[in-house]
């Protein structure tokens, strides 16, 4: 058999036919690749350099010593406490909302969805002033609370409220997609086998969606840990009561740079941990979804 007839007739690359003679595809590819690599390197450098500078500019011994500074300790404790409570509140409040929005249609759902996303886009300073206008002593709701002897501004509760306000969308969005990803077939199977709606939710849907929910909760935790603008406007700045880590960094920067750097490093480390956690969890979620 004459194998030659299977030989492709066009020996020249298509590119040369299209672009004419003298066109070197390999060279062009090389230039493109170098360009892209350069773009990646530049972007990486732009993000990595400031983070690395934080570590390079703070000598380890003074930073470790600053870790015992009461300002640092108080801020760390307060931040951890408020962010944990915030995450709990967001999960309790947000899970039903996310589930309902993932599974059901109802009038005004679009509005609810947009409202949930609003704090992500809203500048924190706007969130702060909005909270003041609502819950401040002269605010629309705060006015009545004040009459009852309840005052929210300048308390730890105000810190938590500011954090819930800004971080809830991060959880609700993630939880919603996680619920949407759960195959309806599982739910229907459980229901036909006689499981109640509530039983199905807790024993079928929740276990499948749990990794996504946890990573959403971690994102909300991270966002509340970093909350600054709304907190300083609504909750004020008082060591041990409302001075969270970002506020302490801002305050310390005006007096004691070592303390500011120390707190910044702690926050960077926490951010890294959060990213690592979310990555492993979401990866596991997709592996689970595939098998």
């Amino acid at each position, binding site marked *: 058999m004459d194998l030659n007839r299977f030989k492709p007739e066009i020996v020249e690359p298509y590119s040369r036919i299209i672009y004419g003679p003298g066109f070197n595809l390999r060279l062009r590819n090389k230039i493109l690749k170098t360009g892209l690599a350069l773009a990646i390197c530049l972007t990486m450098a732009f993000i990595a350099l400031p983070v690395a500078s934080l570590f390079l500019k703070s000598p380890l011994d003074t930073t470790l010593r600053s870790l015992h500074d009461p300002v640092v300790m108080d801020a760390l404790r307060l931040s951890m406490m408020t962010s944990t409570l915030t995450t709990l509140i967001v999960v309790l409040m947000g899970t039903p909302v996310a589930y309902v929005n993932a599974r059901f249609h109802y009038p005004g759902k679009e509005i609810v969805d947009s409202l949930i996303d609003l704090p992500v886009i809203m500048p924190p300073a706007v969130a702060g002033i909005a909270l003041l206008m609502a819950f401040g002593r002269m605010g629309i709701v705060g006015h009545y609370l004040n009459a009852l002897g309840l005052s929210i501004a*300048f308390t730890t509760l105000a810190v938590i409220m500011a954090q819930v306000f800004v971080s809830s969308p991060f959880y609700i969005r993630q939880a919603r997609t996680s619920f949407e990803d759960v195959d309806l077939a599982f739910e229907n199977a459980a229901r036909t086998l006689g499981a109640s709606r509530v039983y199905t939710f807790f024993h079928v849907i929740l276990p499948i969606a749990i990794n996504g929910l946890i990573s959403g909760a971690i994102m909300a935790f991270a966002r509340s840990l970093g909350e600054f603008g709304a907190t300083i406007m609504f909750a004020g700045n008082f060591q041990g009561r409302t001075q969270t880590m970002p506020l302490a960094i801002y305050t310390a920067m005006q007096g004691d740079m070592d303390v500011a750097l120390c707190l910044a490093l702690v926050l960077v480390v926490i951010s890294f941990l959060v990213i690592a956690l979310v990555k492993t969890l979401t990866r596991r979620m997709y592996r689970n979804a595939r098998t």
Partner: protein
Amino acid sequence: MTERRRILFLLTLTVLMLCTDAKEPEELTVFCGAGLTGAFNEIGQIYENESGIGVDFNFDGVPALRAQIEQGAYADIVVSANLKHMDALEREGYIDNDTVEIFAGNKVAVIVPNDNPANITNLTDLAKPGVKILIGIKDLPAGDYARRVLDKLAVDPEYGPAYKEAVAANIVSEETTVNRIVSKVALGEADAGFAFISDVSPQMVGKVTRIVVPDEYNVVGKSPLGVLKHSKYPQEAQSFIGLVMSEEGQSILKKYGFIPVNENSMNWQAIDQTSSKVCDNWGRIRWI
């Protein structure tokens, strides 16, 4: 080829234009304590009208401004509300020391919202339990001076150390600029705040009331300004300072509640010595 030559020509032209441009300043950059916003905006406007050179202000808490300068920010003039931060900048070599001048004095005042929900009419009322008081952070000139006033009250038998402790217990927030203290008090979120007499700007007049701290307990703060060593336009900066020190500038400052420098009632030397001493003690005292 002609195309390329034309581009080259245009490029040289732009570079030349940029070079000549640098000699004639379009604007002065002034780093200014937040509490001086009103008065300096007005003085800056006059300077712009007279010289045709724009004045670009960066208003923030003085310690924040100092940190920015120490980290390499560019400014022609820095205006502080107290000597401490200016001294530090001079020591660190950022300021042309010959240009530093004290342009005004200032005193501490307690401000309360106009409707005064906690019914504060004198200094004693600040110690009532449950009163919400705002103060500046200790690095802020207004916060520093407020603490000195409380120190003075603490040693007076009429008030005593218990008074100071009671007031300290009522502090709900330490703010990083004096403007935020005034605006939060004006909003009615806090019952009282420690600020300077001059911090009640014309816009705030209808919203907050000042309670005067008697002179025997008050501290007179000296506010300096100076030209930075790296300033590109030292001459223009000097003329701006000249305007601040002129009768016109001083009358604007007086309007805003500052004490003009030519008023003889102040004994600058005596103030300076006592204030730096108290200041050292304050660095160690922790609130709560």
